[in-house]
C-alpha cells in the first residue's frame, strides 16, 4: 500500500480566528566605525529597548556588520524577508522603517486591481442556462 499524505481539511487563514503578526523577526545590523551608522547606533542605544518592549511577539537580533551600511531585515512567517538600508538616517526615521517592516505582510509588492481575494466558492453558485425559468424569445 502506498504511503498517503494527510489531506488538509481547511486552509489556514491567519486572522479569521487567531491572529499572528506576519513579521516574526527583525535583524538590526550596524557598524561601529562608519559614519552612516551614526543614527542606527543612536537608535539601538536609545529607542530599541522600548520598541522591543512594545512588540513582544517579534524576535529582535542586533549584530555588527563592519564596513557596511546599516540594514534592518525583517523575516516573515511566509518565509520571505525584507531588507531596508538605513544609511545616514536619523533615529526617528529608523523607527519609521522598523514600523514599516513590522506591519508589512512579507509578500512581494504587487499592484492589484481587485480589492477582494477569496478562496471560498461562490456563495450564489454559478449561473446555468438549464435551470430556473424557461426564457422565451
Amino acid at each position, binding site marked *: 500500500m502506498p504511503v498517503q499524505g494527510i489531506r488538509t481539511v481547511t486552509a489556514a487563514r491567519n486572522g479569521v480566528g487567531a*491572529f499572528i503578526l506576519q513579521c516574526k523577526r527583525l535583524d538590526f545590523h550596524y557598524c561601529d566605525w562608519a559614519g552612516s551608522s551614526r543614527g542606527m547606533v543612536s537608535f539601538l542605544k536609545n529607542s530599541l529597548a522600548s520598541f522591543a518592549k512594545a512588540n*513582544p511577539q517579534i524576535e529582535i537580533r542586533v549584530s555588527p556588520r563592519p564596513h557596511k551600511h546599516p540594514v534592518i531585515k525583517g523575516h516573515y512567517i511566509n518565509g520571505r524577508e525584507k531588507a531596508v538600508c538605513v544609511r545616514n538616517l536619523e533615529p526617528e526615521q529608523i523607527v519609521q522603517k522598523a514600523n514599516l517592516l513590522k506591519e508589512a505582510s512579507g509578500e512581494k509588492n504587487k499592484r492589484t486591481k481587485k480589492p477582494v481575494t477569496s478562496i471560498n466558492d461562490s456563495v450564489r453558485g454559478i449561473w446555468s442556462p438549464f435551470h430556473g425559468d424557461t426564457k422565451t424569445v
Partner: protein
Amino acid sequence: MFSRTALARAFALPFEQSARPLTTRFGVCLRQASTTTTSQSHPEQPTEPLSATPRAQTSAPSQQPPTSTPSSTPQIPASKLPVAPAFTSPVEVTKSLLENLPYLTGQKPHYITAHLHDKPYLLTEGDHLRLPFLMPNVKPGDVLRFNRASLLGSREFTLKGTPYVDERLYECRLRVMGVDSEPLRVKEKTKRRRRHVQRVTSKHRYTLLRVMDIKIKTAEELLQEGAVVVEDGKGVSEVEVKA
C-alpha cells in the same frame, strides 16, 4: 477595537449622506412616529440598543503595546471599548421579514456587500480585503466592525437594504492584518519640443483586512434584543428569493 477617530473616519458615511432625507437611510429603523409610541409600550426593552458582543482585543494608537493574542487579554480596558452607537429607537422588523429571516439565517454560507467610503465590497467569511487606501489609526490585530451593508445573502435568499440594511440585523467583523505597499510607480512626463523627461514617482500604501465573521442575527435574537415588529410597508428591508 478602534480609536474614536478611526471609527469616525471609517464610518463617516452617514454624515456624507445628510443631504438625503433621514427616513431613507435605514428603512427599518427610522420610522419615528410609530417607533416612539411602541417603545413606550414596551417597558422591558433592553437598555442597550445594539447588543453586539464585544470580541477580541482592541487598541488605540497610543503607547499601549499591541497584543497579538486575544486570549491573553480577556479584560478590555474601558478606553478601548467600541463606541456605543446612539440609537434612539429599537430596530423595527416587518412581519414578512420575521417570517422569511429563518430561511436566510439557516442557509450558510453568507455573503455581504459592505460599503466603506461608499464603495461596495462583496465579502464572504475568510476573505482577504486590501483597501484601496491606508486606513489611519489602526494597527495590525485590530478588529473593525463594518456597519454598512446594502445586501446580505445566502445561496437562495437575499436581504436587500433600502438603501442600507440596519446595522443591528447583522455583525460583520474584519481584522486588520497589516499594511501593504505597491511597487514604485514612475510616470514619465514630457513637454513638446523639449528633450527632457520628468519622472514622477509615487508609492502608495494599503491596509490589509481579513473577514473574521459574517453573522446574520436570527429572528429570536432580534426579538430578544428588543426588536419591534411592525406591519409591512414600503422602504423596509425584505428578504428576496433568488429568481
